[in-house]
Protein backbone atom coordinates (compact mmCIF):
# COMPACT_ATOMS: atom_id res chain seq x y z
CA UNK A 1 0.00 0.00 0.00
CA UNK A 2 1.21 3.50 -0.61
CA UNK A 3 -0.18 7.01 -0.68
CA UNK A 4 -0.93 8.24 -4.20
CA UNK A 5 -2.71 11.56 -3.94
CA UNK A 6 -4.30 14.19 -1.71
CA UNK A 7 -6.92 16.53 -3.15
CA UNK A 8 -8.36 19.58 -1.34
CA UNK A 9 -11.10 21.97 -2.27
CA UNK A 10 -12.59 24.58 0.06
CA UNK A 11 -10.49 23.22 2.90
CA UNK A 12 -8.99 26.09 4.93
CA UNK A 13 -6.93 28.33 2.65
CA UNK A 14 -7.31 25.95 -0.33
CA UNK A 15 -10.25 27.69 -2.04
CA UNK A 16 -9.40 26.24 -5.46
CA UNK A 17 -9.11 22.51 -6.14
CA UNK A 18 -5.51 21.56 -5.42
CA UNK A 19 -3.95 18.13 -5.68
CA UNK A 20 -0.64 16.74 -4.51
CA UNK A 21 0.65 13.48 -6.05
CA UNK A 22 2.90 11.36 -3.88
CA UNK A 23 5.64 8.94 -4.93
CA UNK A 24 7.64 6.59 -2.71
CA UNK A 25 10.48 8.28 -0.81
CA UNK A 26 10.52 11.78 0.63
CA UNK A 27 8.19 14.54 -0.52
CA UNK A 28 9.25 18.01 0.62
CA UNK A 29 6.77 20.87 1.02
CA UNK A 30 8.23 24.37 1.06
CA UNK A 31 6.91 27.93 0.89
CA UNK A 32 6.63 31.26 2.69
CA UNK A 33 5.09 31.70 6.15
CA UNK A 34 1.30 31.63 6.27
CA UNK A 35 0.77 30.16 2.82
CA UNK A 36 -0.92 26.89 3.72
CA UNK A 37 1.73 24.19 4.35
CA UNK A 38 0.44 23.19 7.80
CA UNK A 39 -3.10 23.33 6.43
CA UNK A 40 -2.07 20.32 4.33
CA UNK A 41 -1.19 18.47 7.54
CA UNK A 42 -4.58 19.44 8.96
CA UNK A 43 -6.19 18.04 5.80
CA UNK A 44 -4.53 14.69 6.46
CA UNK A 45 -5.70 14.67 10.08
CA UNK A 46 -9.23 15.55 9.00
CA UNK A 47 -9.51 12.91 6.27
CA UNK A 48 -8.19 10.29 8.68
CA UNK A 49 -11.18 10.96 10.88
CA UNK A 50 -10.18 13.69 13.34
CA UNK A 51 -13.22 15.04 15.16
CA UNK A 52 -11.45 17.72 17.20
CA UNK A 53 -11.75 21.32 15.95
CA UNK A 54 -9.03 22.35 18.42
CA UNK A 55 -6.69 19.72 16.99
CA UNK A 56 -7.16 21.48 13.65
CA UNK A 57 -6.35 24.85 15.29
CA UNK A 58 -9.98 26.01 15.10
CA UNK A 59 -12.71 26.63 17.65
CA UNK A 60 -15.47 24.82 15.76
CA UNK A 61 -15.37 22.35 12.90
CA UNK A 62 -16.78 24.99 10.52
CA UNK A 63 -13.39 26.71 10.73
CA UNK A 64 -12.07 24.21 8.18
CA UNK A 65 -14.33 25.57 5.42
CA UNK A 66 -12.69 28.29 3.32
CA UNK A 67 -13.80 31.50 5.02
CA UNK A 68 -13.06 33.95 2.22
CA UNK A 69 -10.45 36.68 1.80
CA UNK A 70 -10.74 40.41 1.21
CA UNK A 71 -11.41 39.57 -2.46
CA UNK A 72 -13.21 36.24 -2.33
CA UNK A 73 -16.43 35.07 -0.81
CA UNK A 74 -16.51 32.20 1.66
CA UNK A 75 -17.31 28.77 0.19
CA UNK A 76 -20.18 26.53 1.19
CA UNK A 77 -18.25 23.35 1.89
CA UNK A 78 -14.84 21.79 2.46
CA UNK A 79 -13.79 18.57 0.76
CA UNK A 80 -10.67 16.44 1.06
CA UNK A 81 -9.90 13.18 -0.79
CA UNK A 82 -6.96 10.89 -0.17
CA UNK A 83 -6.14 8.11 -2.66
CA UNK A 84 -4.17 4.98 -1.73
CA UNK A 85 -2.78 2.26 -3.96
CA UNK A 86 -4.23 -0.95 -2.57
CA UNK A 87 -2.96 -3.61 -5.02
CA UNK A 88 -1.46 -5.48 -2.06
CA UNK A 89 -4.91 -5.47 -0.39
CA UNK A 90 -3.39 -3.78 2.69
CA UNK A 91 -6.85 -2.36 3.36
CA UNK A 92 -9.46 -5.03 3.87
CA UNK A 93 -11.44 -4.00 0.80
CA UNK A 94 -11.46 -5.53 -2.68
CA UNK A 95 -10.23 -2.59 -4.75
CA UNK A 96 -6.76 -1.91 -6.12
CA UNK A 97 -7.27 1.79 -5.41
CA UNK A 98 -8.99 3.21 -2.37
CA UNK A 99 -10.19 6.82 -2.44
CA UNK A 100 -11.53 8.26 0.83
CA UNK A 101 -13.48 11.53 0.74
CA UNK A 102 -14.79 13.72 3.53
CA UNK A 103 -17.09 16.73 3.08
CA UNK A 104 -18.45 19.28 5.51
CA UNK A 105 -21.19 21.75 4.52
CA UNK A 106 -21.94 25.08 6.18
CA UNK A 107 -25.26 23.57 7.16
CA UNK A 108 -23.31 21.28 9.49
CA UNK A 109 -23.96 18.16 7.40
CA UNK A 110 -21.02 15.78 6.89
CA UNK A 111 -20.46 13.23 4.15
CA UNK A 112 -17.96 10.37 4.03
CA UNK A 113 -17.26 8.33 0.91
CA UNK A 114 -15.11 5.32 0.04
CA UNK A 115 -14.53 5.09 -3.74
CA UNK A 116 -17.39 7.52 -4.28
CA UNK A 117 -19.87 5.44 -2.23
CA UNK A 118 -21.39 7.11 0.81
CA UNK A 119 -20.40 5.49 4.08
CA UNK A 120 -20.13 6.38 7.76
CA UNK A 121 -17.16 7.78 9.68
CA UNK A 122 -17.07 4.45 11.51
CA UNK A 123 -16.37 2.64 8.22
CA UNK A 124 -13.36 4.90 7.59
CA UNK A 125 -12.07 4.42 11.11
CA UNK A 126 -12.43 0.65 10.74
CA UNK A 127 -10.41 0.77 7.53
CA UNK A 128 -7.52 2.40 9.39
CA UNK A 129 -7.76 0.29 12.51
CA UNK A 130 -4.56 -1.72 13.08
CA UNK A 131 -2.61 0.17 10.46
CA UNK A 132 -0.65 2.44 12.82
CA UNK A 133 -1.99 5.58 11.30
CA UNK A 134 -5.24 7.33 12.03
CA UNK A 135 -6.02 10.84 13.18
CA UNK A 136 -4.28 10.70 16.53
CA UNK A 137 -1.46 8.42 15.57
CA UNK A 138 2.23 8.76 16.11
CA UNK A 139 2.88 9.13 12.38
CA UNK A 140 2.02 12.84 12.29
CA UNK A 141 4.30 15.30 14.13
CA UNK A 142 2.68 18.74 14.07
CA UNK A 143 4.52 22.06 13.91
CA UNK A 144 5.88 23.15 17.27
CA UNK A 145 4.72 19.95 18.96
CA UNK A 146 7.82 17.83 18.38
CA UNK A 147 8.60 17.61 22.10
CA UNK A 148 5.13 16.35 23.05
CA UNK A 149 6.35 12.72 23.16
CA UNK A 150 9.12 13.74 25.59
CA UNK A 151 6.93 15.96 27.75
CA UNK A 152 4.03 13.54 27.99
CA UNK A 153 3.49 11.93 31.34
CA UNK A 154 4.62 8.38 31.55
CA UNK A 155 1.12 7.01 31.30
CA UNK A 156 0.22 9.18 28.26
CA UNK A 157 3.32 7.86 26.57
CA UNK A 158 2.02 4.34 27.01
CA UNK A 159 -0.88 5.10 24.73
CA UNK A 160 1.50 5.50 21.79
CA UNK A 161 3.06 2.15 22.58
CA UNK A 162 -0.33 0.51 22.81
CA UNK A 163 -1.19 1.88 19.38
CA UNK A 164 1.99 0.34 18.02
CA UNK A 165 1.41 -2.99 19.71
Amino acid at each position, binding site marked *: *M*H*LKKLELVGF*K*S*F*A*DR*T*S*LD*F*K*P*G*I*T*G*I*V*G*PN*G*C*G*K*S*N*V*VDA*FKWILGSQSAKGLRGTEMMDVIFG*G*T*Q*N*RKPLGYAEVTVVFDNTDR*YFDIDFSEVAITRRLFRSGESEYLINKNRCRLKDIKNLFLD*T*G*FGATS*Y*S*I*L*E*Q*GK*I*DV*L*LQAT*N*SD*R*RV*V*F*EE*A*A
Partner: protein
Amino acid sequence: CRELFQETFDSVQLNFKDLFRKCFGGGRAELVLEEGVDILEAGIDIVARPPGKKLRTLALMSGGEKTMTTIALLLAIFKSKPSPFCILDEVDAPLDDTNVRRFTVLLDDFLENTQFIIITHNKVTMGQADTLYGITMEERGVSKRVAVSLESYDPDEMEALATST
Protein backbone atom coordinates in the same frame (compact mmCIF):
# COMPACT_ATOMS: atom_id res chain seq x y z
CA CYS B 1 -2.31 -8.85 25.31
CA ARG B 2 0.43 -8.78 27.90
CA GLU B 3 2.85 -10.65 25.66
CA LEU B 4 2.05 -8.37 22.76
CA PHE B 5 2.77 -5.24 24.79
CA GLN B 6 5.98 -6.66 26.27
CA GLU B 7 7.15 -7.75 22.82
CA THR B 8 6.50 -4.28 21.35
CA PHE B 9 8.16 -2.58 24.31
CA ASP B 10 11.27 -4.76 24.02
CA SER B 11 11.55 -4.19 20.29
CA VAL B 12 11.11 -0.40 20.55
CA GLN B 13 13.63 -0.36 23.41
CA LEU B 14 16.25 -2.11 21.27
CA ASN B 15 15.62 0.24 18.33
CA PHE B 16 15.63 3.33 20.55
CA LYS B 17 19.05 2.46 22.02
CA ASP B 18 20.45 2.00 18.53
CA LEU B 19 18.81 5.06 16.94
CA PHE B 20 19.76 7.37 19.82
CA ARG B 21 23.41 6.43 19.31
CA LYS B 22 23.02 7.18 15.59
CA CYS B 23 21.37 10.54 16.31
CA PHE B 24 24.02 11.66 18.74
CA GLY B 25 27.09 9.83 17.47
CA GLY B 26 27.32 8.04 20.83
CA GLY B 27 25.82 8.25 24.31
CA ARG B 28 23.12 5.99 25.73
CA ALA B 29 19.36 6.04 26.05
CA GLU B 30 16.70 3.66 27.23
CA LEU B 31 13.04 3.27 28.09
CA VAL B 32 12.14 2.31 31.64
CA LEU B 33 8.86 0.67 32.61
CA GLU B 34 7.40 1.83 35.93
CA GLU B 35 8.39 -0.59 38.70
CA GLY B 36 5.93 -2.56 40.76
CA VAL B 37 2.97 -1.88 38.51
CA ASP B 38 1.15 -4.31 36.22
CA ILE B 39 2.71 -4.10 32.76
CA LEU B 40 -0.69 -3.19 31.31
CA GLU B 41 -0.84 -0.10 33.53
CA ALA B 42 2.80 0.92 33.90
CA GLY B 43 4.01 4.31 32.65
CA ILE B 44 7.09 4.60 30.41
CA ASP B 45 10.05 6.79 31.39
CA ILE B 46 12.76 8.00 28.99
CA VAL B 47 16.36 8.13 30.15
CA ALA B 48 18.84 9.76 27.74
CA ARG B 49 22.50 10.74 28.04
CA PRO B 50 24.29 12.57 25.18
CA PRO B 51 27.91 11.41 24.58
CA GLY B 52 30.49 12.56 27.13
CA LYS B 53 27.89 14.16 29.37
CA LYS B 54 26.51 12.99 32.69
CA LEU B 55 23.03 11.69 33.01
CA ARG B 56 20.57 14.52 33.68
CA THR B 57 16.81 15.00 33.46
CA LEU B 58 15.27 15.53 29.99
CA ALA B 59 14.30 19.07 30.99
CA LEU B 60 17.98 20.10 31.22
CA MET B 61 18.66 18.99 27.67
CA SER B 62 18.90 21.67 24.99
CA GLY B 63 16.22 22.36 22.39
CA GLY B 64 18.17 20.53 19.69
CA GLU B 65 18.99 17.58 21.95
CA LYS B 66 15.34 17.11 22.89
CA THR B 67 14.30 17.18 19.24
CA MET B 68 16.90 14.58 18.25
CA THR B 69 15.81 12.37 21.17
CA THR B 70 12.19 12.61 20.04
CA ILE B 71 13.17 11.76 16.44
CA ALA B 72 15.11 8.70 17.71
CA LEU B 73 12.08 7.52 19.69
CA LEU B 74 9.65 8.11 16.83
CA LEU B 75 11.80 6.20 14.36
CA ALA B 76 12.29 3.42 16.94
CA ILE B 77 8.51 2.96 17.06
CA PHE B 78 8.42 3.04 13.26
CA LYS B 79 11.04 0.32 13.11
CA SER B 80 8.98 -1.94 15.37
CA LYS B 81 5.70 -1.20 13.65
CA PRO B 82 6.25 0.43 10.28
CA SER B 83 3.58 2.88 9.25
CA PRO B 84 3.00 3.43 5.54
CA PHE B 85 3.46 7.17 5.81
CA CYS B 86 4.81 9.82 8.18
CA ILE B 87 4.26 13.58 8.19
CA LEU B 88 6.85 15.88 9.81
CA ASP B 89 6.05 19.62 10.06
CA GLU B 90 9.24 21.69 10.52
CA VAL B 91 10.88 19.26 12.96
CA ASP B 92 14.27 20.51 11.76
CA ALA B 93 13.68 24.10 12.94
CA PRO B 94 15.76 23.82 16.19
CA LEU B 95 18.58 21.74 14.63
CA ASP B 96 22.07 22.85 13.61
CA ASP B 97 23.42 21.74 10.22
CA THR B 98 25.19 18.63 11.56
CA ASN B 99 22.02 17.34 13.21
CA VAL B 100 19.91 18.13 10.15
CA ARG B 101 22.25 15.93 8.13
CA ARG B 102 22.14 13.12 10.71
CA PHE B 103 18.35 13.28 10.72
CA THR B 104 18.01 13.11 6.95
CA VAL B 105 20.54 10.28 6.69
CA LEU B 106 18.53 8.29 9.25
CA LEU B 107 15.41 8.52 7.13
CA ASP B 108 17.15 6.55 4.38
CA ASP B 109 16.75 3.34 6.43
CA PHE B 110 12.99 3.78 6.46
CA LEU B 111 12.21 4.63 2.85
CA GLU B 112 11.41 1.03 1.93
CA ASN B 113 8.33 0.84 4.10
CA THR B 114 7.41 4.46 4.68
CA GLN B 115 6.63 7.53 2.59
CA PHE B 116 7.70 10.75 4.28
CA ILE B 117 6.04 14.14 3.83
CA ILE B 118 8.34 16.80 5.27
CA ILE B 119 7.50 20.51 5.60
CA THR B 120 10.67 22.55 5.98
CA HIS B 121 12.42 25.91 5.45
CA ASN B 122 15.86 24.25 5.67
CA LYS B 123 17.81 23.89 2.43
CA VAL B 124 19.71 20.80 3.59
CA THR B 125 16.45 18.96 4.25
CA MET B 126 14.98 20.10 0.92
CA GLY B 127 18.02 18.62 -0.75
CA GLN B 128 17.05 15.17 0.50
CA ALA B 129 13.56 15.23 -0.97
CA ASP B 130 12.73 13.08 -4.01
CA THR B 131 9.83 15.37 -4.92
CA LEU B 132 9.46 18.99 -3.93
CA TYR B 133 6.20 20.98 -3.87
CA GLY B 134 5.89 24.70 -3.25
CA ILE B 135 2.80 26.15 -1.56
CA THR B 136 2.39 29.87 -1.93
CA MET B 137 -0.36 32.52 -2.12
CA GLU B 138 -0.17 34.33 -5.43
CA GLU B 139 -3.60 35.65 -4.52
CA ARG B 140 -3.54 36.72 -0.86
CA GLY B 141 -5.30 34.29 1.41
CA VAL B 142 -5.64 31.57 -1.27
CA SER B 143 -3.17 28.68 -1.28
CA LYS B 144 -1.80 27.41 -4.56
CA ARG B 145 0.60 24.63 -5.41
CA VAL B 146 3.55 25.59 -7.60
CA ALA B 147 6.20 23.42 -9.18
CA VAL B 148 9.60 23.77 -7.57
CA SER B 149 12.85 22.11 -8.45
CA LEU B 150 15.65 22.08 -5.96
CA GLU B 151 18.22 23.67 -8.25
CA SER B 152 15.90 26.51 -9.11
CA TYR B 153 14.30 26.89 -5.68
CA ASP B 154 14.67 30.43 -4.61
CA PRO B 155 12.76 31.20 -1.42
CA ASP B 156 12.96 34.92 -2.11
CA GLU B 157 11.33 34.53 -5.48
CA MET B 158 8.54 32.45 -4.01
CA GLU B 159 8.06 34.89 -1.18
CA ALA B 160 8.07 37.80 -3.59
CA LEU B 161 5.31 35.98 -5.46
CA ALA B 162 3.33 35.70 -2.25
CA THR B 163 3.88 39.14 -0.81
CA SER B 164 3.47 41.08 -4.03
CA THR B 165 -0.29 40.74 -4.19
